[in-house]
């Protein structure tokens, strides 16, 4: 069956649904991605091996709005976005995989593990009789994994109430500054691939965001709809999209 042959009418409900349920959440989410990616704050977690807050496009849309996403992608007015979304998602997957490869390399590097162990022993010695240091026994488990995760996410300072706060405050520089691109751990190549994947996704998200913002402006001006639903009592009869939540 042919995609929509007729242009939607002014103030079309369908177009409003695309703007409010698809474009707005995606624009908001991509703006957030673009605040996190340049800082290297990927929210990558070793236990899930995923970025918690940088997600595939479909996860930025409310579950009950997925039919509107399908409708958006099916209509030729929105041509090109399906492949844009695929590029974003496949590059996110590349980033997550390259972070995992780098993580695995680090946490299997004897030298890295020795470095963490040495730092932990020093931490234990420093913490004796000092109530400010969280109990070493509480941070020992999975410490190499946390260190690798913090390096991946470029974590600088942790909140004081985190158990690894003091350890990271005192030993972060040892892991970051004593190695040039992780060469001594044999992970220069995986680090470079990982770093490149962050830059690539940043570029793709930037391009996609620009495209979505422009498209929203185009739809809103062409179909005479506001870029966000008006409060019901101020809509003056505009067929506003109303969330019934």
């Amino acid at each position, binding site marked *: 069956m042919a995609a929509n042959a007729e242009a939607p009418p002014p103030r079309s409900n369908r177009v409003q649904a695309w703007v409010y349920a698809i474009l707005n*959440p995606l624009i908001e989410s991509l*703006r*957030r991605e673009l*605040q*996190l990616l340049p800082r290297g*704050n990927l*929210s990558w*977690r070793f236990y899930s091996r995923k970025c*918690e*807050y940088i997600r595939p496009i479909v*996860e*930025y*849309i*409310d*579950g*009950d709005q997925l039919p509107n996403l399908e409708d958006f992608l099916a209509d030729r007015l929105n041509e090109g976005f399906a492949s844009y979304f695929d590029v974003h998602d496949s590059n996110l997957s590349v980033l997550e995989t390259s972070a995992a490869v780098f993580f695995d390399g680090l946490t299997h590097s004897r030298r890295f593990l020795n470095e963490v162990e040495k730092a932990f022993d020093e931490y234990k010695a420093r913490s004796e009789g000092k*109530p*400010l240091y*969280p*109990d070493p026994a*509480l941070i020992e488990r999975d410490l190499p994994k946390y260190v690798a995760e913090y390096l991946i996410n470029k974590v600088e300072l*942790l*909140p*004081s*109430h*985190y*158990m*690894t*706060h003091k350890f990271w405050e005192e030993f972060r520089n040892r892991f970051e500054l004593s190695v040039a691109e992780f060469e001594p751990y044999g992970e220069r190549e995986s680090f470079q691939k990982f770093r490149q994947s962050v830059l690539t996704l940043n570029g793709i998200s930037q391009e996609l965001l620009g495209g979505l913002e422009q498209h929203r402006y185009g739809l809103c001006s062409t179909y005479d709809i506001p870029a966000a639903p008006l409060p019901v009592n101020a809509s003056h009869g505009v067929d506003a999209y109303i969330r019934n*939540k």
Partner: protein
Amino acid sequence: MPTSATSKRHELLILDTGPIRELVLFHAISEFRFERLRAHLRFIDDAESYRRCSEFVASYSNRLTTSAGVVVELYHWIRETDERGRNKLWGRVYDEFRNMGINEEVVKLLHMDPTFIVRYGPVDGSLLELARRHLPRNPLILTADWPFHGECTKSGFRVSHLDQITARTA
């Protein structure tokens, strides 16, 4: 009342839902830019109050809460937020529990004083039961609920309100 992780570390902090929720929220907003959540914040509204609260919690070597009561309250709160962000908020709650090293202790109904349940409900009742159970460790309950704060005081338990921790005069 301890106000920061200065020189002394205290033994046991029992966390009510409110402080956990505020720590989760502020971190989500400041670190991960979930600006829409700002409207849910009640006590930790800037970096300074977050720092005060974080240091206060850090001054306790053990943090304890009660499952499933507090977790169910977190669940009810998250259910009221935007559907799209719910899985991310749960991710933040998991991160917060993991990073804070919170211990969870189950308090069975049959172990709670029926008068506690009648007066405070199961969540506050189980927090008070935790405090009673760990009395030799001189626990302090941290809450964001003034009526519960009053009940803790009346029952003779040490308690602080989040407002007292985050206030500039704290």
